[in-house]
């Protein structure tokens, strides 16, 4: 065994830290990751995307031929971890551009699609920003229930239907859309396809959904007779379910380093706060911080195990679900303990982070209000637990 990162990874870590110190405002912190919420943050995120693209980091995981660096999984982990710790925005190109749209296109897309979309994502420009539209009002955890339809007419698909909880749709230029192309199927997993839609198309309407704490992160997206060229079909018609399982795998695999880096930053912010406020005298707080440190280190090492398996070309089956559930449990606990440590100040609105009464730039409150959403996104904890049960423990299907 060897629990050290290699020299290459450590060098990269150093470079990212230098980049963060040079490029981020001096009082920047991890609280500001909700980049799609405000125009001001979004604009800053996009300037960072361009800089990351120039460094070659934005799509470092991609092969060189598609504008990447062919970075190892370990380098990607270090990059994600550091970017999250320092709160470098603009790393994802909307929801999924870098992490799963690109890799899925490489796997299933036509030459034409690859040539058009991959360089756009790798450029870090606003024209490379994506949203991912899977969920519908009646297709949440039961995702195969989708009813948004694409009907072929000559060289075009005509798309009608509604998507919901579509994060960053209000920032995205393109939509990675799951649709039904066949209704006459014996199983609902059949007849699904993936189509790329230009968000500027006629008939696309984005309606904001505001969350309980005032964030504008996700949206409803309506498709009314939206016409899309058949060349925008990704992979094969009606092969969408199979393709999307790969995309979801990319999605779950990409977040582990980021989640860890984010939690680690908030823990360190809390430790510093506890020191400055002389709260380390309180045994209760000391022990809570100790528990958090254990959870977060466990989170890191589990994520590393998943990556280690992938690096040995062992296809992880339940591990990403395990890591996601454990992250959600860790983040929730961190948010609760963090707000307890901040005490009455944790009542502040994290979106008003410039208020003189806001502590730690609102990062603890932001975690508190956003962590339930993270626990639901990309598969609820209950769905992930089903995957762990079925594939990690070989138990019978429970739903």
């Amino acid at each position, binding site marked *: *065994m*060897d*629990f*050290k*990162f*290699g020299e290459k990874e450590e060098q990269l870590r150093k470079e990212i*830290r230098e980049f963060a110190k040079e490029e981020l405002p001096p009082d920047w*912190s991890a609280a500001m990751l909700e980049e799609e919420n405000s125009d001001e943050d979004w604009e800053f995120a996009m300037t960072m995307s361009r800089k990351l693209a120039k460094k070659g980091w934005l799509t470092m995981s991609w092969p060189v031929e598609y504008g990447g660096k062919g970075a190892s999984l*370990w380098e990607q982990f270090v990059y994600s971890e550091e970017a999250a*710790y*320092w709160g470098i925005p603009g790393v994802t190109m909307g929801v999924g551009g870098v992490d799963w749209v690109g890799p899925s296109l490489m796997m299933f897309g036509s030459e034409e699609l690859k040539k058009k979309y991959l360089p756009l994502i790798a450029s870090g420009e606003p024209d490379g920003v994506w949203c991912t539209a899977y969920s519908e009002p009646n297709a949440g955890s039961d995702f195969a229930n989708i009813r948004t339809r694409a009907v072929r007419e000559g060289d075009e698909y005509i798309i009608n239907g509604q998507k919901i909880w579509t994060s960053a749709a209000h920032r995205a230029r393109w939509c990675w859309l799951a649709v039904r192309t066949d209704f006459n199927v014996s199983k609902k997993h059949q007849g699904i396809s993936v189509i790329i839609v230009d968000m500027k198309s006629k008939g696309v309407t984005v309606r904001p959904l505001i969350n309980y704490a005032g964030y504008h992160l996700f949206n409803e997206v309506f498709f009314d007779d939206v016409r899309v060229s058949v060349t925008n079909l990704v992979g094969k018609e009606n092969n969408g379910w199979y393709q999307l399982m790969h995309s979801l795998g990319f999605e779950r695999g990409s977040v582990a380093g980021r989640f860890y880096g984010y939690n680690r*930053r908030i823990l*360190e*912010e809390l*430790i*510093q706060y506890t*020191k400055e406020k002389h709260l*380390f005298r309180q*045994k209760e707080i*000391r*022990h809570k*911080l*100790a*528990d958090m*440190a*254990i959870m977060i*280190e*466990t989170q890191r*090492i*589990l994520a*590393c*195990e998943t*990556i*280690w398996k992938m690096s040995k070309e062992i296809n992880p089956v339940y591990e990403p679900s*395990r890591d996601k*559930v*454990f992250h959600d449990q860790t983040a929730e606990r961190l948010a609760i303990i963090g707000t307890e440590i901040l005490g009455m100040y944790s009542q502040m609105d994290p979106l008003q982070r410039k208020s003189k009464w806001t502590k730690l730039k609102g990062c603890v409150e932001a975690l508190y209000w956003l962590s339930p959403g993270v626990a639901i996104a990309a598969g609820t904890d*209950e769905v992930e*637990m*089903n995957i*762990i*049960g079925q594939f*990690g*423990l*070989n*138990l*019978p*299907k*429970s*739903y």
Partner: protein
Amino acid sequence: MDLDFTETQDILKKTAREFMARYYPKSLVRELKKDRTGFRDEIWKEMANLGWLGWIIPEGYGGVGGDFMDLIVLFEEMGRACFILPFFSTVMCTLPILSAGTEEQKKEFLPRIAQGEMVLSLALTEPSATYEPWGITTKALADKDGYVIDGTKLFIHDAQVAHCFLCATRTETEGPPEDGITLFLVDAKSPGIGIEVIPTVAHDRQCEVRFDRVRVPRSNVLGEVNKGWDIVEFILQRGAVLKCAEMLGGTEAVLEMTNNYAKERVQFDKPIGSFQAIQHKLAQMLIEVEGLRYLTYEAAWHISAGMPSKLLISMAKTKANEVYQRVCLDGVKIHGAVGFTEELDLSLYFIRTKSSEFALGDGGFHRERIACELEQLQPLFMR
């Protein structure tokens, strides 16, 4: 980063698994519960033959010259089998002899340990029931021939079969509690030693050991006089992570048997493992067990590589204490009423929750150590 075992470790794991299946069935675990010595000479000799007793002892002293990390593999398998012979006790005393013993002490003890001729027992804790340095009140007074030890040690594992104790004493009462502690290697046959097995629920041979004017020659001091706490600290850290490995093995076994039961037990015409209430509990157990596994390996690897490891060790032990208990409690409950019985093998693991938790530091003890480290931590963003 690489999480693979070495080839040696793979073989060790396989051998240990086979050894336990062959020599250490659950029927023997139950038999040993009722046995006064808790010892089986033929098994001990077989362990010596396999080189386990001298695994970390250099070849020059008759050992194998293996790595600390290898021990983790071994203890994980032992925990899995509910192994109870005094291997753990002996290793905890072997490690400090290796690191702090004089050449003479090494020559005297190490070859005999490796050959299976010697069982050692760590006489550290007392009725004060703490691993903090203030808990050590057993006195050792110097006279012209050596030292005279007086006091009571409690929760001493395997004292009933030990040939020798590694005993922590107070030789100086002034100053902070960690000063003035001296360790002695004490022949168990010395006049004045009284040993009584105390009735623990795990039947894991913990003893009260009374030292009544026990004479020890000066040459039996391990390390330096009054500087023994550093060695205790060394033992605590290594012992804690080895205990984690043992507990990890236990949680793996409990999860496995509970998972199997959930697949076999049918109610409402379905295996109970198909119900989410049960399945999600098992999934949570898996998450916790795997977390414990890699946290333990990580801590042990840092020790083995000579890197700072105090924080990781305390993290691993706190986690082990929680996970072992949680997995056992949920395991019992998933089994339903049969989980409440002695005849179920799970019971053998469950009855050890407390003896494992309080060996080498409970959650409060280790959380305190973690908090001290965190307080010293300079956040990355402040540097």
